[in-house]
């Protein structure tokens, strides 16, 4: 049984009165502990794919399964097993952290969900748990009482990562986790993600248009163009010997120093 399975998934959305196809006929399986990069330009459907896995969007056709059970057509209160074991890190920590909450309340949020509280192995959101979560992402414990705007961009994204790991998930979906960050702090956040994912044996789905980032963190890469998977394979092979012209264009457009 795969951790995540997408079976003939299609997704459309309406904008300005017109229907757009975001994904068509996507077949995908992600195993426990696997690190998969989802690569494509903006509008390719890669972000839609990530949101479908977490039930944040509904597919227009097909089935999405998490740990063998379909997440489609269930009311939110019956998706507890998904909520307790899947997390997400967003692109922009300015937007993904509630500006009116202190860090301690932001980071502890996943522990407040009814789904997680039903799991016996999850600790109470006490000081020691929060301190450990902060230490785990390299943040000073004193920052727990700060508000997001009192932190730097890199610290905010570390806090977002701390939140995503506090319920000890099996799947971490990261949507462009470093592209809103300065080049100067990108490396540290990438090191952090890489360490945490490896140590915890998490499955990682990394959505990015930055091939260098995907090459750094992932084992397998999926290239998506206009809602279709056009190429996939081991990361070294796809990034060094791309076979599809779209992948070639992506590789060619990637700037390096």
């Amino acid at each position: 049984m795969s951790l995540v399975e997408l079976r003939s998934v299609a997704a459309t959305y309406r904008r300005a009165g017109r229907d757009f196809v975001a994904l068509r006929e996507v077949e995908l399986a992600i195993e426990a502990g696997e690190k998969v990069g989802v690569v494509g330009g903006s509008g390719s459907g890669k972000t839609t794919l990530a949101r479908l896995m977490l039930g944040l969007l509904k597919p227009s056709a097909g089935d999405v399964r998490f740990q063998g059970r379909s997440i489609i057509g269930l009311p939110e209160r019956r998706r507890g097993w998904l909520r307790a074991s899947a997390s997400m890190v967003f692109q922009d920590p300015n937007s993904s952290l509630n500006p009116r909450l202190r860090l301690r309340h932001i980071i502890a949020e996943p522990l407040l969900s009814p789904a997680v509280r039903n799991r016996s192995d999850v600790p109470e959101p006490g000081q020691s748990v929060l301190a450990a979560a902060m230490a785990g992402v390299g943040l000073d414990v004193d920052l727990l009482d700060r508000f997001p705007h009192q932190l730097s961009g890199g610290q905010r994204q570390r806090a977002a990562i701390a939140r995503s790991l506090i319920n000890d998930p099996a799947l971490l979906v990261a949507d462009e986790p470093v592209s809103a960050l300065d080049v100067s702090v990108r490396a540290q956040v990438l090191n952090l993600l890489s360490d945490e994912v490896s140590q915890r044996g998490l499955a990682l789905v990394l959505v990015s248009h930055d091939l260098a980032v995907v090459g750094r963190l992932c084992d397998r890469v999926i290239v998506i163009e206009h809602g279709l998977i056009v190429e996939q394979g081991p990361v070294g092979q796809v990034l060094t010997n791309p076979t599809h012209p779209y992948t070639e264009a992506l590789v060619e457009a990637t700037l390096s120093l």
Partner: protein
Amino acid sequence: MNILEVTDLTVRFGRNRPAVDSISFTLGAHDRLGIIGQSGSGKSVTSLAIMGLLPEHAQVSGSIRFDGRELVGLPEREYRKLRGDAVSMVFQEPMTALDPTMRVGRQLGEVVALHHGERRGSIRDGVLDWLGRVGITEPARIADSYPHELSGGQRQRALVAMALANEPALVLCDEPTTALDVLVQRQILRLLDVQLRDRATVFVSHDLAVVREVCPRVAVMLEGRIVEQGDIEQIIAEPRHPYTAGLIASARIDRVPRDQPLPSVADFYTPAEEA
């Protein structure tokens, strides 16, 4: 002859450490200077100071001479004339820089009209001409669209057209590709490279690899100061300041083996007050 001479420019907000601290650089009429630095380094404040777009309570000292004319202390009315004519700016986020309630063609038309004021009938032609020049394939359809109906790349192209339509002598680009994916970024950088020929350009970015595509010269800003400036290839090959060295090392994600941690700027340079 230099078109832009910035001398000992200092910008302060209140009693804090200056956001820009006594920086100097010059720009010839066809030169391009990249300014790189992280957020809070003062790079964006510098470009806003040149554009005269700083908030009222900013205290500016030093000199910004554009085409022989002193811009520090220039009245807002004069500045507005200058911005419509000789100096323009390409912003980072095209969605906020464009008016969402106005068709793209009309917004661009306002700029075109400023320049071709005398021949009113040709404004539409001017708009379509400019949209074509920035590589928009269906200029007529795009001109009649609202910003939200365009893709990110099309919006940024439209923004470039708006910045260039008044044929400015100096263009400031503030992270013009940061919100774009690599494919569109490549296209926009190529477009800028062509369209900025025969103009002076200041290109602000946090990404050295992006700046390198457009600018032969770069200034590295840190905590409000320029810590080094010069030929970009030379600086990449032999950075003199440890911060620059850290910036370059941490950007080379693809050169570090997977089992080794990426070097970060902090491994090379620690800010004085935090040490």
